[in-house]
C-alpha cells in the first residue's frame, strides 16, 4: 500500500498520477472467515479495523449490499462531540472523540478531524440547569466541557443573534475539542486500512439469510453465495430490524427519516458547531464553505430516505432566527437518511439470543461521532465477550428498566 504524503503526491505528479494503487482491494468472498461483519459503514469498518489492530483478528470479511460508506456515514452532518450526561454515553463518545484526534495519522488518511468546538445553546432556564448539570457530570467523566456566558458565545460566533426576541441566549455548554470530520473519508480511511491488513471488503453483496447450528451462528447466505463464520457482527443502521429477524430475534427499534441540508458555499463566517435544541436546529460551516444544517427526525416509520419538507421549514426557521444573516443564503441541497431509534434513544451494542451473533445498532441521529469508539468497543465485545464501553448498552436493559436516557439534557442528539 502506497503511503500517503505530500512527497508521494509530488512523486506521482511527475508521472501523471499513474502510480496510485487502489485504496482498497476488490474482493470476492472466501468460503469461510473467523468474523463476518455485515455493513461496510463507518461502524462496521471501524469494528473490523479494531478487531485486527487490537486483537489480531484479520481473517475478516465486511459485507456491504451497496457501496461502502453509502448509508448514514455519508449522509450525516459530521458533528463530533462527547458532552453527554450519562456515564455510559460519555464513555463511548469520549473514546470515539479521542480516537478521532489521531485518526488521520493512525489510518494514514486525512479525515480532516476539525476540533473547532461544539456549542449547545441554553435558551431557557431549564436548559441552563440541564447543561450546567452536564458540565458537572462531564468533569467527573474525563470530558472537558464548560458552561459559557452569552458574551463568550457571541465572541465565538459573531453571526449569532444572542438576544433574539423569542429565546435570548442565556449561555451554552461548550466543548472546545468537539468538531467535525470529513464523513466519507472516515469510511474510506478505515476501508483502506482494513484492506491493508488483508481483510476482504465485499461491496454489492447483500445478506439474504443468517445460518445457525444448535443455537450458534454458522454463517450468512448472500447474493454472492454462502459464507461461513464463527462470529457475526450486524452493523446495518436502517436495516437492523430486518437483519435481526433473519437471525430469529427482534429488537426494540423503529426506523425513521432524518433530514439535513446545505447552503451554497460562502467564505468562512462560523468557526464552531452550534446546536440550538430549544428551537431544534444545528449548523456548522464545512471546509468547502457550505452551511451544514440539520434538525429533528420525522415522526413515522419510513425507509424511503426522503423526509417531509415541513421539517426542513422548521429547522431553517429556527436557524434564520438564530443566525439572521443566513436569510439570503440559499438552500443548495436537502437529503434524508434512515435512522434506527430505540426505546430509550440510546444505541444497542450487545450479544443476541443467537450465540456468536452480535448487534450494533440504534444510534439514532448520533452515530457518526461514535464511529471509532463504537468500533473499538464492539470489536472488544466480539473478541472477548464483553467490553466496559458496551456493557451498559446491552439488549436486556429494556426488560430491566435500565434505560440510558440522554433526553434529560439533549433535545436533538446529533
Amino acid at each position, binding site marked *: 500500500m502506497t503511503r500517503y504524503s505530500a512527497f508521494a503526491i509530488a512523486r506521482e505528479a511527475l508521472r501523471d498520477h499513474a502510480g496510485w494503487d487502489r485504496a482498497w482491494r476488490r474482493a470476492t468472498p472466501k468460503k469461510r472467515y473467523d468474523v463476518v461483519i455485515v455493513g461496510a459503514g463507518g461502524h462496521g469498518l471501524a469494528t473490523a479495523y479494531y478487531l485486527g489492530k487490537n486483537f489480531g483478528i484479520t481473517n475478516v470479511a465486511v459485507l456491504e449490499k451497496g457501496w461502502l460508506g453509502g448509508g448514514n456515514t455519508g449522509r450525516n452532518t459530521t458533528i463530533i462531540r462527547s458532552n453527554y450526561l450519562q456515564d455510559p454515553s460519555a464513555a463511548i463518545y469520549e473514546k470515539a472523540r479521542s480516537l478521532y484526534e489521531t485518526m488521520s495519522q493512525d489510518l494514514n488518511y486525512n479525515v480532516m478531524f476539525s476540533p473547532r468546538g461544539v456549542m449547545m445553546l441554553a435558551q431557557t432556564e431549564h436548559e441552563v440547569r440541564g447543561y450546567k448539570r452536564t458540565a458537572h457530570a462531564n468533569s467527573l467523566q474525563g470530558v472537558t466541557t464548560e458552561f459559557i456566558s452569552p458574551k463568550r458565545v457571541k465572541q465565538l460566533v459573531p453571526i449569532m443573534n444572542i438576544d433574539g426576541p423569542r429565546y435570548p441566549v442565556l449561555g451554552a455548554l461548550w466543548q472546545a475539542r468537539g468538531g467535525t470530520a470529513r464523513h466519507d473519508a472516515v469510511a474510506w480511511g478505515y476501508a483502506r486500512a482494513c484492506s491493508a491488513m488483508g481483510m476482504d471488503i465485499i461491496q454489492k453483496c447483500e445478506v439474504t439469510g443468517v445460518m445457525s447450528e444448535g443455537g450458534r451462528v454458522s454463517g450468512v447466505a448472500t447474493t454472492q453465495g454462502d459464507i461461513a463464520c464463527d462470529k457475526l457482527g450486524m452493523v446495518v443502521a436502517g436495516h437492523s430490524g430486518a437483519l435481526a429477524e433473519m437471525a430469529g430475534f427482534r429488537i426494540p427499534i423503529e426506523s425513521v427519516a432524518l433530514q439535513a441540508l446545505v447552503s451554497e458555499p460562502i467564505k468562512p463566517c462560523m468557526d464552531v458547531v452550534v446546536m440550538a435544541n430549544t428551537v431544534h436546529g444545528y449548523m456548522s460551516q464545512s471546509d468547502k464553505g457550505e452551511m451544514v444544517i440539520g434538525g429533528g427526525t420525522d415522526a413515522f*416509520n419510513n425507509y424511503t430516505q426522503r423526509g*417531509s419538507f415541513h421539517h426542513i421549514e422548521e429547522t431553517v426557521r429556527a436557524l434564520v432566527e438564530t443566525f439572521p444573516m443566513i436569510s439570503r443564503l440559499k438552500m443548495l441541497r436537502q437529503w434524508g437518511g434512515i435512522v434506527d431509534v*430505540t426505546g430509550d434513544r440510546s444505541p444497542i451494542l450487545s450479544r443476541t439470543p443467537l450465540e456468536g451473533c452480535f448487534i450494533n445498532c440504534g444510534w439514532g441521529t448520533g452515530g457518526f461521532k461514535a464511529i471509532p469508539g463504537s468500533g473499538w468497543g464492539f470489536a472488544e465485545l466480539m473478541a472477548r465477550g464483553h467490553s466496559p464501553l458496551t456493557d451498559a448498552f446491552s439488549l436486556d436493559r429494556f426488560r430491566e428498566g435500565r434505560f440510558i436516557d440522554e433526553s434529560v439534557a439533549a433535545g436533538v442528539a446529533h
Partner: protein
Amino acid sequence: MLTLKCPYCGVQAEETELHAGGEAHLTRFGPDSSDDDFETYLFTRENPKGVHFERWRHSHGCGKWFHAARCTMTLEVFGTYPAQTTEPPQDIRDAITAKRPGWTWREFS
C-alpha cells in the same frame, strides 16, 4: 409530506395537522404481567419494510385518534380506520391483499 384521510371528520389531512403515534394494536400489559409481555408491550415494535399499522391523531382538527395501514417503503396508504378496534378490520386487510398479495402481519395474519 403525507396526507391521511381522517375516518372521523373526513378531512384529507396533511401531516402538519396530524400527530404520529407509533405502532397500532398494541396490547396493554399491566401489573402481574410477565417480563416478556411487558417488554414487548413497551418496546418491541414491528418495524416492517412494507405494510405497517400505525396510530395517528388528527391533532390540528377533530382531535381523534385513528389508525392507518401504510407501506413504509412507498408511503402508499391502504386505508385509515377508527382506533376503537384491537386489530385491523377485514376491509382494510382485503384492500391490502388486493395490492400486496401474500402480505402477512405477524400477530393477525
